């Protein structure tokens, strides 16, 4: 039996002459015919196991992609200058960009302040009602909502912008915004105690109105 030929024939990787020769062989070889039938049966059965990704997951992936500005067309004029001249020009541009515009003393002081530590949500711990009963790990919906919330926080958006740009968080997971914008929880009619400052979800006992709010 030509097991490899069966696979390569089925995947269309035999050239015309090889395929024709194998087809002639198939007519007289029951084992190869059976093998080829098995390859096709596995193909059909695997197809039946295929699943679409959840729509919320696809939407989250697409929402994360933000187009970059198109390349600056005038840079093409650097090409005739040659590599060395182009590099010198690019270096000059870089130095100018690094130096930037003059800053006020307040701006200079602000820029020297290190960014806040990323304490949320990577180390967030799901309370029992947000964890899978089977694995004990946070449910996928919980994790992806945390991702959105983190992105929201890092981008420094206010709550109104979040409503527009992160509808999944703003609508389906409003309490995350309450955590991200601790000074404006009232805007969402939420209790700031839903998440502790460390990003730890409180048990359902302490927030019974949230119980069961997250889908599995």
């Amino acid at each position, binding site marked *: 039996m030509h*097991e490899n030929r069966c*696979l390569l024939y089925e995947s269309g990787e035999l050239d015309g002459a090889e395929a024709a020769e194998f087809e002639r062989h198939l007519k007289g070889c029951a084992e190869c015919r059976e093998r080829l039938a098995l390859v096709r049966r596995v193909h059909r059965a*695997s197809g039946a196991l295929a*699943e679409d990704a959840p729509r919320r*997951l696809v939407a989250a*992936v697409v929402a994360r992609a933000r187009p970059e500005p198109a390349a600056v067309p005038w840079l093409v004029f650097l090409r005739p200058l040659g590599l060395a001249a182009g590099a010198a020009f690019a270096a000059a541009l870089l130095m100018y960009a690094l130096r930037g515009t003059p800053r006020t003393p307040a701006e200079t002081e602000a820029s020297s302040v290190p960014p806040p530590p990323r304490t949320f949500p990577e180390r967030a711990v799901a309370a029992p009602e947000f964890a899978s009963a089977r694995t004990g790990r946070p449910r*996928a919906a919980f994790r992806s909502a945390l991702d959105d919330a983190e992105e929201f926080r890092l981008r420094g958006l206010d709550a109104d912008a979040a409503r527009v740009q992160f509808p999944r968080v703003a609508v389906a997971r409003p309490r995350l915004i309450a955590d991200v914008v601790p000074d404006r929880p009232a805007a969402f009619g939420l209790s700031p105690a839903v998440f502790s400052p460390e990003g730890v979800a409180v048990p359902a006992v302490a927030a019974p109105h949230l119980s069961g709010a997250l889908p599995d």
Partner: protein
Amino acid sequence: MDDDALIQACRTDSEAFRTLVERYQARIYSFLIRLAGRDAAEDLFQETWLKVYENAHRYEARGKAASWLFKIANNLTRNHWAKSGRRKFVSADDAAERLPDRAPQPHAALEQEESRKGLAAQIAALPVEQRQVLLMREYGQMSFKEIAETLDIPLGTALSRMNYALGKLRNALEDPHA
């Protein structure tokens, strides 16, 4: 627009990225569920597309978009295993018992469902090397030559792994209770 053009455009054109994701979402998701398990698949799915987006400008258009996408998904799964120290097989629970519920069915359809679950469990039980080849062929629709290049193994090795996998899956396809 073909896949190569979509990948090359997706950094500057969100519609191109959306089209690419829609075109491949079921295949990538199915690949990840069967390779890494349902628990890890959602995170890996998001990471895969993030990586695709970040690296799209490095993609060389040679008509091998599927190879490139599935290589990313496969590498991320390997990293996931390395980081988490988790097992490299998918439990039967992950693979079969939580297949999406379908509407009530007549006897024949129930048998088909049993067979489907049986096959999922058999795939989950395959050694990871065989499972990678099988899933790249079935969901990536990649040629064996592409699979061999993607996994950096000889063509003969890719073919023999597939043959071993087929041998093990034969029982599940013949007897749903195997």
